[in-house]
């Protein structure tokens, strides 16, 4: 058995079990790789390297697979200009996360407005269709996103970034363009809704 990678960033209160590729648990190699210089003029190479990260964040925020390809493409097309001035992988990743959050928020809000006036249905939480999970786990994921549909888009995003992605509160605030206190309040809003719904689950 290979030695277990040394963990350098683990959110102490989470134990969220984020798997390889997640940000909550990162090994030294991943941290070192993020500090590497990077050629930001090569959009294809950037896409191949960071699209899985952008897709993962988008999927977890939206709770669906169906809009993700589209959103990933949108993010890279819009982020490209801003990326040219960056030189390190972690800065690129940060900028892409900012654009992803902005676009996902816009998409969630538009979807809710359309649903409100009867022009569209809410996004289906098809993340619950992961065949590797048990029926009970799938039902849990679907229920969680149904609860997250009842809180504001901002609270949902803050909760996903903090609790699922394991980002520090400061980083959540930065990504959402809000203060640390507001970020904390939003995470709490979503957390309260979920606790209320799952207390007797």
């Amino acid at each position, binding site marked *: 058995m290979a030695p277990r990678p040394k963990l350098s960033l683990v959110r102490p209160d989470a134990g969220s079990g984020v798997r*390889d590729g997640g940000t909550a648990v990162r090994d030294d190699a991943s941290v070192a790789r993020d500090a590497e210089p990077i050629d930001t003029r090569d959009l294809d190479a950037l896409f191949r390297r960071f699209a899985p990260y952008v897709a993962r964040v988008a999927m977890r925020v939206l709770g669906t697979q169906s809009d993700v390809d589209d959103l990933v493409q949108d993010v*890279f097309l819009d982020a490209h200009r801003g990326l040219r001035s960056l030189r390190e992988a972690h800065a690129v990743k940060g900028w892409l996360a900012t654009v992803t959050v902005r676009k996902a928020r816009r998409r969630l809000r538009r979807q809710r407005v359309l649903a409100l006036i009867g022009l569209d249905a809410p996004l289906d939480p098809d993340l619950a269709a*992961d065949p590797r999970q048990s029926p009970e786990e799938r039902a*849990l994921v679907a229920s969680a996103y149904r609860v997250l549909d009842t809180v504001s888009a901002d609270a949902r995003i803050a909760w996903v970034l903090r609790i699922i992605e394991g980002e520090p509160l400061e980083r959540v605030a930065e990504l959402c363009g809000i203060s640390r206190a507001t970020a904390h309040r939003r995470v709490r809003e979503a957390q309260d809704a979920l606790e209320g719904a799952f*207390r007797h689950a």
Partner: protein
Amino acid sequence: MREGDVNTERVARTIGAVDPRWDAVRTEHALAGMHRRKRRRRALLGAGVMTTALAVALILAQSAPVPRQREAHTSVAIAKRSAVSAAPRPPLRFADGSVVMPDALAEVVLATVSNERIALRLDAGSISVEVTPRTEREFEVICGRVRVVVLGTGFVVERRAERTYVRVLHGRVRVVWDRGARELGADEDGTFPLDDGLTAAASDIDAPREAPPRPRPSAASAPSAAATDWRPLAERGEYDAAYLALTARGERAVDDEVETLLLAADVARLSGHGVAALPYLERAASHHDDPRALLASFTRGRILVSLARAAEGAAEFERVAERAPTGALAEDALARAIEAHQRAGHADRSRELARRYLHEHPRGRWIERAEAALGAGSGAPAR
């Protein structure tokens, strides 16, 4: 800790463990989509500039003869129409939860809706479809001569001139045309109908071993195709036309640059000529100092497996995993090598690689496949 915290921690852990189902293949597909959208944006910008210019010309030409004004009006109308057609389109949703997402250029007609059957006709562009499985109702997409019958859930259909590209995201579909049918599973794709003697799919479907590639254009069309540069056509996504031009110009049309070789391979693959893509990919894969060589090798492996040349495909995947064991493609390559060896009947090698996969990727995306391979033929449950 409050009682609710325990439950929400479980929720967070469960969501965190959901497989995003985003692999190297999906990355490449999305990348191609991004380039298409980039070109469309440019075209839209061009149309906007042209519309403005024509509007200015119209104002300036108030005193000009009538026929010129009519011509300008027509051009403005065309420019406006193309601007409108490239706007984002809302998804089409059904009461049972099924969703159809058209791209900006899609022309979709709801041909039949009944309790027994939903049929959509795709006249242009592409759609992504997520179908809620219902055994009592058939769901199909009709695209030219091809019918895509849903057996599972999510897939993409794209109209490409006279042919139809189908990619399955998850679940299964059956593609039916006048002279044949194929079933595609998750992560498989292909362009249909398949050519006579030439199997088109750049996918993992089982297909007969192909004859050597034949140039497609007729003698009559060859001279004009030869005069056309295939690259601009390929960059615009017109793969059928690009393939005609490419084959007409022969070997000299493709220099030894990795980028050109990959583009030529895309043209062959996406126009439905998987075999013809192989030599280009082999040449690209031989540029060991270029990081794209691995992608070329990986794609070559996929095509070989789709052509029922599983042993060769397995060797190609193993090469990718060996050359960059910590690279982005390594995990997928190892998983595909396991499957390819299984298909080739190399059970021992497949199990050996499955053990290696589980050791190297204890939280990997393809654990189930590896465990299945490990259990296959041994009569014992995996691990």
